[in-house]
């Protein structure tokens, strides 16, 4: 039998037949290795996860028109073809137009977009209700919804006026047959009531819409929907006289406000306008300026404005290894077209780098601490092992073991523990990383085969270092003293 074989036989016998102590040492190494392997796995996997996360965190590039006017859709599509297949995760068009809510004498910036793409470039959007899907549906920014007292399921009329969209300052009483009038007055507790009336050829009221959404819902609010109440106005001419209309019971103040607002109504809309009534299906909450817009589908907006194929902004979510690559794509896009320029959205890319940097130092720190603790634990255990085996070491020396063979034997046992602990730790660590990844990032990771040798080598090195002191102690044991009969 070769010496090496006997050496291995002795070491394995020591580990297998003297389980308890060695198990503790093995456990410390395995725990250390688990944390090491787990953290390293997460550390190397996180950048991948993070860029996926940050891609989810919104657009990282935007396309803007060069100059003041809008971009042509065709031009944009041509540019997007320059980004490699697969790298383009989402591309959301935006066209911004001022639309009036005539009844309230307010105007809002409205965005026409593609809601399917919005979900890719702005996944953090938090919607109450849902994204618009069908025709005549809008999503309101929360600020607007609050200002208007709008709730899900309500309707609102939006009007597009070409050119300068400010309403005329027509004096009241200039009644034009067929005109649409709108007015407002303070109702219950100073909250506004808005009315829109259409006049027939005889300048009599042909249709009336009341917007009482700021009034108390179960009292004044009913004026907007109570058919009998509203029908009283039809056929009456303006200004309304005392006794023309009976107040809705429980809504006297609001009823009075409706009469007053009709009497002070102005001609608000011109002939070239186009308007549509939309129902509110979603309210957007982001905490940012996105809450100041009204959103509708791009075709809907284009139908309202009558012009198509023009965009103000294109938000892109592009998959890239690092900022340089992303910048490269942006440069390609900018150079590929005279009328467009692409730029990176700085906020996202920077936070990505900062978080990774912090994560890196954290991982290094925790790893160092864990390795140190492992070392202390293994060293303590091995020290106890040497004490426990004083007689055996003395005996080996008496049988002719040299100092170096004692060293090699202990180092061998230590490294063998390192080997076992390392393999165990690498596997457990991977499992640990997998659990973390699934729970935190919601995605799984693949086993890095390199992790196994690296963990094992680190563990063996740590075990070797931990054994230095115990070995020194073992070598110092005097065979004569031990054999004397302790």
């Amino acid at each position, binding site marked *: 039998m070769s*010496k090496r074989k006997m050496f291995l036989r002795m070491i394995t016998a020591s580990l297998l037949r*003297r389980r308890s102590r060695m198990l503790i040492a093995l456990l410390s190494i395995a725990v250390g290795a688990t944390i090491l392997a787990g953290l390293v796995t997460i550390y190397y996997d996180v950048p991948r996860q993070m860029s996926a996360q940050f891609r989810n965190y919104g657009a990282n590039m935007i396309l803007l028109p060069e100059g003041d006017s809008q971009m042509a859709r065709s031009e944009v599509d041509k540019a997007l073809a320059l980004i490699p297949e697969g790298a383009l995760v989402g591309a959301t068009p935006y066209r911004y137009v001022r639309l009036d809510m005539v009844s309230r004498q307010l105007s809002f910036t409205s965005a026409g977009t593609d809601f399917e793409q919005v979900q890719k470039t702005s996944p953090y959007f938090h919607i109450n209700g849902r994204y618009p899907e069908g025709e005549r549906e809008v999503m309101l920014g929360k600020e607007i919804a609050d200002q208007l007292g709008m709730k899900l399921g309500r309707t609102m009329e939006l009007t597009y006026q070409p050119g300068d969209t400010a309403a005329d300052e027509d004096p009241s009483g200039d009644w034009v047959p067929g005109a649409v009038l709108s007015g407002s007055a303070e109702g219950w507790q100073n909250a506004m009531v808005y009315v829109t009336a259409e006049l027939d050829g005889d300048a009599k009221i042909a249709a009336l819409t009341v917007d009482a959404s700021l009034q108390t819902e179960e009292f004044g609010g009913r004026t907007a929907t109570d058919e009998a109440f509203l029908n009283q106005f039809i056929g009456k001419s303006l200004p309304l006289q005392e006794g023309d209309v009976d107040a809705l019971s429980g809504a006297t103040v609001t009823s009075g406000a409706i009469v007053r607002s009709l009497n002070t109504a102005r001609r608000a809309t011109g002939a070239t306008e186009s308007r549509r009534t939309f129902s509110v299906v979603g309210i957007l909450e982001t905490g940012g300026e996105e809450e100041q817009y009204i959103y509708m589908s791009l075709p809907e907006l284009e139908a309202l404005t009558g012009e198509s194929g023009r965009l103000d902004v294109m938000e892109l979510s592009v998959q890239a290894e690092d900022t340089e690559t992303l910048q490269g794509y942006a440069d390609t896009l900018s150079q590929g077209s005279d009328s467009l320029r692409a730029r990176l959205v700085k906020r996202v890319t920077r936070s990505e780098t900062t978080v990774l940097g912090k994560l890196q130092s954290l991982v290094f720190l925790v790893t160092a601490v864990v390795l140190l603790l492992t070392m202390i634990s293994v060293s303590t255990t091995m020290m106890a092992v040497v004490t426990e085996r004083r007689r055996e070491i003395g005996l080996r020396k*008496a049988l*002719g*073991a040299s*100092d170096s063979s004692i060293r090699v034997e202990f180092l061998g046992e230590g490294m063998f523990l390192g080997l076992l602990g390392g393999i165990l730790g690498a596997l457990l660590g991977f499992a640990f990383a997998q659990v973390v990844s699934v729970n935190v990032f919601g995605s799984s990771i693949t086993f890095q085969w390199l992790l196994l040798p690296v963990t094992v080598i680190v563990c063996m090195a740590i075990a070797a270092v931990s054994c230095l002191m115990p070995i020194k102690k073992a070598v110092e044991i005097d065979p004569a003293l031990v*054999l*004397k009969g302790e």
Partner: protein
Amino acid sequence: MSLLEIKNVSKIYGELKALDNVSIHVDQGEWVAIMGPSGSGKSTMMNIIGCMDKPTMGEVLLDGVDISKESSKKLTEIRRDKIGLIFQQFHMVNYLTAVENIMVSQYYHSLPDEKEALDALERVGLRERAHHLPSQLSGGEQQRVCVARALINHPELILADEPTGNLDEANENIVLDLFAQLHREGTTLIVVTHDPEVADAAQRTIVLEHGRVAREVINENFQD
């Protein structure tokens, strides 16, 4: 021809003279017993002869080499190559089997040879207990394994410190028979004992008292 020559050796621990100007010689192939009351310096002398300790003064010539002046590394080599040790407390590696314990001795000496180790066990009558752990062997059996281990590398000198101190009559006789066999094969034996019967088996008995040689007795009845 003398294998061991101890000349004016003293071992002093502080005030205490464990060995006090001792001179002894042991011939090649001789079987010597050492007796004496407790604390008379028997183990101290065995440790010095066994290259595990050095005398404070004096010379110890083993095979013509003065081991009192050698480095501890050199002493380890000499012990490994020339000496077989047997202890009162058996001293086996407790997680290795009987045959593995013998192979440990081979491992440090030259090369482990399982067959040879099994033959040695055969010789002490424990062939069938080869794969038992020390905890599964009786005291007598353990001591016989230790004898097998001591002779496995064919040492010139076997040192036994109270080898039968913890054994019953039957096992004591087995061990003494083994010694007699070794003696016939030409091995030099030095056996420390309290037991007159064990001493009577030897050719010569040296009696120590207070670290000095009190007397030497030649065993007239010794039979080869």
